[in-house]
């Protein structure tokens, strides 16, 4: 029997990956619908806290999409994103979470096909990994 549908959160940068998503849509490419796009101005604006929060709130996988190296609208945001993802993966694996649940991809505005392929392939991967069950007690810090 098939398990519950996986949930994938995708942070897309405004200038490349989000436009790539748009192109994939207008090109009517077949994409597995189990993903939710969050548009950010730059992949470098994706605070590592947001990635962890996505997992905490029920995401089974997270993709960060940015401009190809050298193409960042803000010059170097994507390089920062790369370094953060490398460190986040180390953090996730120390916490016992499969680091393949986090993925960074460079998808330009003209790469609708790549967008569709990455999403389809990633969701398939997450399906094979199964749901991420975080039985976390709620964060109850009152100082937030």
């Amino acid at each position, binding site marked *: 029997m098939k398990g519950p549908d996986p949930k994938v959160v995708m942070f897309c940068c405004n200038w490349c990956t989000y436009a790539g998503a748009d192109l994939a849509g207008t090109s009517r490419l077949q994409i597995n619908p189990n993903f939710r796009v969050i548009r950010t101005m730059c992949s470098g604006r994706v*605070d*590592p*806290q947001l*990635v*962890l*929060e996505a*997992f*905490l709130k029920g995401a089974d996988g997270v993709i960060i999409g940015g401009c190809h*190296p*050298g193409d960042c609208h803000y010059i*170097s945001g994507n*390089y*920062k*994103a*790369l*370094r*953060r993802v*490398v*460190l*986040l993966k*180390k*953090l996730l694996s*120390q*916490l*016992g*979470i*499969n680091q393949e649940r986090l993925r960074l991809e460079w998808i330009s505005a003209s790469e609708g096909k790549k967008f569709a392929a990455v999403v389809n392939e990633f969701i398939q991967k997450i399906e094979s*990994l*199964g749901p*991420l*069950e*975080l039985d*976390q*007690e709620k*964060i*109850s*810090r*009152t*100082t*937030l």
Partner: protein
Amino acid sequence: MAKLKMAVYWGAACGGCDVAILDTQEKILEIAELADIVFWPIAVDLKYEDIETTEDESIDICLYNGSVRNSEQQYVAELLRRKSKVVIAFGACACFGGIPGLANLFDRDQILERVYKTTPSTSNPDNIYPQTEVKVKEGTLFLPHFQATVSALDKVVEVDYYIPGCPPPVNLIMGAVDAIKTGNLPPKGSVLAPEKSVCDECPRERKEKAIPEIKRFYQVQDDGKTCLLEQGILCIGPAVRAGCEGACIKANMPCRGCMGPTPGVIDQGAKMIGAIGSVVGLADEEIMSESEVQELLDKVEDIIGCLHSFTLPVALINKKIKEKS
């Protein structure tokens, strides 16, 4: 003004926070003038019964230090909450779980097995593990139950104020004493410490944050003046609340984060990942391959031990996850 009643308790703690109260030196007299101590296991011989039999909310201030690891600590936390008007999480362990919180990287069984079975100095051929009750001829004896995870105090009871630090710096303790004395306490839930980051109080010189690579201590000839992070040493001051006046850095040690995250931040480690990502390996970023970036950052070993030394139990994902398969 009638003398206040004060209780001090230690949960999963090392005793350093209790000593920090004594570190106020001659100012301890000011505290003694302000408050009578009605409960303080490390210093005063009073029993749980003495607290159990007092009226609810009869204690004015409770300083709870240490995290909550077993059922006894939880019981006393709940008891003191009931009996106290104001509960202050005192020290990094009570505020964030502290160093004992790193045990959340292992489960209960792994910890018990390590401690009672596999440490090299342990011989336990009969597999004897501590039990929560044992019958002897005089009756049944009980031991506290060892809980699955380490919790910060505010996961267990409502906390009114936080004084972080490992141990809390004397000036923050005295600041809190003054605030209590003058009735000038900030809104409930406040952290009684500055709202800046450690870097704001750090005496070292900062120029431009661009770090070619992360280094270990032995690879650095510290000049005693330049920002440790700029010299390549992983100092997490940028992501940590001020209040310690850079005590560790003044002793040439990098900040490890005992004051907890800066205001508005939930996850100190994630924030520091953001900061490291912004400053390490900038010079060659355009030509570095992904595997070179990986190699550069693999120098951060034990990322949770580095970035969440004191804060794992209050991190977004605060314990080891067991994935299926």
